[in-house]
């Protein structure tokens, strides 16, 4: 799965996600990616989310919606909300996954419970990227 979330200079937040699903899925299987609130969501008043990982788990947990709910109703930062809801999803259902988040203030959240998640962002002319926990690389845009 791949995904992107952006906020432009006008404050518009957009989220998008695209995938081939999982190996060995039954023909006709639909995952979390095209489901709003699971694989993708955007609301300028709260933020934007794109998720990745085990679709059957993410669908049952409504991961994107729960992350935005944690920001909107509990006042968590984008990072804290992503961390908490990815962890709770895996504790509750068992599958793993991750999410990227930009909240309405333009703050970033990146978290995953899978072994690895590839991610990257651009801000102020610098590319930040990584794939392992607690590891960040940087280079000029």
């Amino acid at each position, binding site marked *: 799965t791949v995904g992107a979330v952006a906020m432009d*200079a006008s404050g518009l937040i957009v989220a*998008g996600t*695209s995938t081939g699903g999982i190996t060995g899925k039954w023909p006709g299987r639909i995952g979390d990616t*095209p489901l709003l609130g699971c694989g993708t969501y955007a609301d300028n008043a709260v933020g*934007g989310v794109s998720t990745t990982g*085990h679709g059957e788990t993410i669908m049952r947990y409504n991961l994107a919606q729960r992350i935005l709910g944690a920001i909107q109703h509990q006042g968590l930062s984008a990072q804290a909300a992503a961390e908490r809801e990815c962890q709770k999803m895996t504790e509750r259902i068992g599958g793993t996954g991750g999410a990227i988040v930009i909240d309405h203030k333009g703050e970033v959240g990146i978290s995953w419970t899978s072994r*690895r998640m*590839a991610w990257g962002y651009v801000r102020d002319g610098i590319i930040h990227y990584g794939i392992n926990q607690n590891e960040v690389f940087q280079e000029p845009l």
Partner: protein
Amino acid sequence: RPILLIHGGAGDITDARVEGKFKGIRDALRAAWKHLEPTGAESSSSALDAVEAAVRSMELNESFNAGYGSCLNTAGAVEMEASLMEGREMRAGCVTLLTDVMHPITVARRLMEKRRHVFLGGQAAQELALSTGSEKLPAGALVTDSARQALREFMEQEAKGLDTTFARTELDDARTDPKGD
């Protein structure tokens, strides 16, 4: 300040695929960032253009499970899905069970722009794709050697009765030379 944040999949990503993921992430960010740069003219769609451009870049890259390089179903075929949502009017487009088109994210955007329905699947999504400019690729054009290998391994695990509940969302590099050497 504009910001662009992307991901390229989560799961048991092998060491052999890390560098490909990194390059693909950097390439996608560079391809998309120009849509967010100040141009002097107010654009109402720069975040939309940036998200679409970033995802399209990764759909072209077999290091990612989307577009070219997608995982295979039990029939050995690629079935893709995508969604796009903007947060001002909360418009959205979602498509599923697409085959033989390179950029499902663009099909999702076309559906969103129609402002009639939010979610189309199967034949209807396919017809929307072709009627809004997506090229129909030859059957199997999106299937990679890595995806075939992953499906073979999945089938072997199933045949042995092993648990495949959390089937793989990430592929290994092909362990045999595709040319047969």
